[in-house]
C-alpha cells in the first residue's frame, strides 16, 4: 500500500522506510514535523498514515493532533500512531466516537516486524491495533468490577480482543481452537453484560468502550 509517514528522528525514519519497503509497501512521503503532515496527506491521499506522536516544532503531541485533524478532513483515513511511551488518554482520543481504522502502538513493537506489519494491515482495513500495554493499563486500573469474575483464560481472550485481534489470531496465539475462543468470548460478553456482538471491529469498540467507562 501507499503510505505517508511522520518521524523526525533520522535513525528511526530510515529504519521505518527500510522495513516498510522491504514488506512491499511504498512510502510516498515522509514528514519531519507536525505541520508537514496534513499537506502531505492531502497531496498524496495514501492508503494509511504512520505517525510519530512527538514531533517538532513543539516536541509535544503534534503527531497525535495532526492525526485527529487529518481524520476530520479525510474521514476513514487509516492512521497508525507510534509513540515511545504509552498514554492512555491518547488512545482514548484516537478511538473516540467509535472510530475505525486507528492504531496506537509503542515504537518498541516495530521491531517485531511481522506483528507490526500485521497491525498495520489491520488498521488499513478498518480494524484496530491497540498496544498491549494500553490494554493492560485499561484492565488493571479498576477495582470492584465484573472483570474480577473473569477466568484467567477469559482475561487473556479479552486482552487480545481489545488489542484488535480476530478469532483466528487469538486462537493461534493461545494455542486453542477457534470454537473455544468463541465460547470464551461469549462468556466474557455475558459476564460484562454486553450485548452479543459479531466478530470484527464493532466488537473491539464495544470492549474498549466498556473498559473506558467501567
Amino acid at each position, binding site marked *: 500500500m501507499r503510505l505517508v509517514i511522520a518521524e523526525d*528522528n533520522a*535513525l*528511526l525514519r*530510515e*529504519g*521505518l522506510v*527500510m*522495513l516498510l519497503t*522491504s514488506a512491499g509497501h511504498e512510502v510516498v512521503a515522509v514528514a519531519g514535523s507536525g505541520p508537514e503532515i496534513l499537506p502531505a496527506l492531502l497531496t498524496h491521499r495514501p492508503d494509511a498514515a504512520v505517525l510519530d506522536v*512527538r514531533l517538532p516544532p513543539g*516536541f509535544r503531541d503534534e503527531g497525535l493532533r495532526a492525526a485527529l485533524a487529518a481524520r476530520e478532513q479525510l474521514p476513514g483515513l487509516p492512521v497508525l500512531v507510534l509513540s*515511545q511511551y504509552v498514554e492512555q488518554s491518547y488512545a482514548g482520543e484516537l478511538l473516540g466516537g467509535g472510530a475505525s481504522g486507528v492504531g496506537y502502538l509503542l*515504537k*518498541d513493537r*516495530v*521491531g*517485531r*516486524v*511481522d506483528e*507490526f506489519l500485521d497491525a498495520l494491515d489491520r488498521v488499513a482495513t478498518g480494524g484496530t491495533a491497540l498496544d498491549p500495554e494500553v490494554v493492560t493499563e485499561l484492565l488493571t486500573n479498576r477495582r470492584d468490577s465484573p472483570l474480577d469474575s473473569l477466568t484467567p483464560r477469559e482475561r487473556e481472550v479479552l486482552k487480545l480482543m481489545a488489542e484488535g485481534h480476530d478469532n483466528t489470531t487469538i486462537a493461534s496465539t493461545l494455542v486453542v481452537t477457534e470454537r473455544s475462543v468463541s465460547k470464551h468470548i461469549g462468556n466474557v460478553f455475558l459476564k460484562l453484560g454486553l450485548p452479543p456482538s459479531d466478530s470484527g471491529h464493532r466488537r473491539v469498540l464495544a470492549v474498549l468502550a466498556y473498559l473506558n467507562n467501567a
Partner: protein
Amino acid sequence: MRKAARATVHLGLAAGLTFGSYLFITMILLAVAGAVVVVGLGVLPETVLLMRRMASAKRRQVAAWTGHEIPEAYLPIRGRLRESLRVATHDPCTYADLRWMVAHYVYGWMVLLALPLWPAALLVDGVRHLLGRAPAVLPLITRLADTEARWSTALLKPPPKARLAERVQRLTTTRADAIAAHGAELRRIERDLHDGTQARLVALSIRLGLAKRAYDRDPETTRRLLDDAQDQVDQALTELRHVVRGIHPPILTDRGLAGAVRALAASSGLDVTVDVAALEDGTRPPAAVESAAYFIVAEALTNAAKHSDADRAEVRLVKEAKALRVVVRDDGRGGAESPTTGSGLVGMRRRAAALDGEFTMTSPEGGPTLIEVVLPCGW
C-alpha cells in the same frame, strides 16, 4: 600629621553627610506628614531608598577610615506600590537607618571640634617636635575620627532581625532557582534518553526484526543487518554513558571527589596542579556537595582551556569547619565576565546557590581568572 589630616577629612565628610541628613530628615517628616493625608504614601518607598543610599555612602566612608566593611541586609524594594510600601515599613533596617540618622544629627559635627584643635596642634606639637617629644594634640584629632567611626559602625550594623530577614529572602530565591534548575535538568535528561537511547534501541530492534525475516533466504543481507545492529548497540551504550555522566559522574561514586577532580585535571588538556590533600583522609562531603563541586571544577577547567587560552591551572579543595572551599585558578587571559561565556558561569553560580553556597570570581582583562566557591556542609 598626615593621619590627622585624613582624620579631619573623614570628619569633614561626616559633617557633609550630616548636612545632607538635615535636609533629608526634613523631607522624611514631610513624607510622614504627607502619608497621613495618603498623598505622601507614594513617596515613602522612594524616601526609604534615598535613606538607604545615604546610609550606604556612610558605610563606605566609615569603611574607608577603619578598613572594615560594614555589611548591609536590606530587603529589596520593588514591585507595586502596596508591596514596596510593605517592605519599606517592615524592613527592620529602615528603623535602624532612621536611628542612625537622628543620632548622626548630633554627633556628625565633630569636625567642629577637630578644626579648633589644628592651631593648638601646630603650636603645641610644633614646640614638642623641637624639644624632640612625640606630638600630643594631633593624635586627639585621630581619636575623634576613630570615635566617630566606632559610633557609626555600631549604628549602621544591620540589626539581627534584618540579617535573618535578608537570609530568608536569599534562601527563598535560591530555593526557587534550585527547583527550576532541577526541573530543567530532568527535562534535559528525558530528552537525551528519548531522542538518543530509546530511538537507538528501536532502530536496533528494527534491524534485528529484518534480519530475522531475511535469515533463511538472504544470509548476506542478514549479516549486514546484524553488523548494523551491533553498531547501533555500541552507539546506544556511548550515549547512555554520556547521559549517566551528566546525571551523576560514576567516578564520584568510585573514587570520591579527590579522585574525580584528579581525573578531571588529567583529561583537561591543561597543566593542572591539584591540591586535594584535605580530602585524602577519606572523609567525604554529602553527595550533593560532591556533585556540585565536581561540576564546578569541570566547568571552570573547560572554560580555562576553551575560552581563556590558559596553559596552566590550579585546583584546590579545602576542608573548612562547616564548608568545602573549591578554588580554581588559571593563567589565561581573563575577562570571563563577558557575555559570550555566560551560560557556564550562570550554571556554576546556580549550582553553588542551590546549596546556599557562595560563588566569587575575579577575572580582570589579561587574567588571571580566580574562582572561589564555598559550599556549606557538615563533615
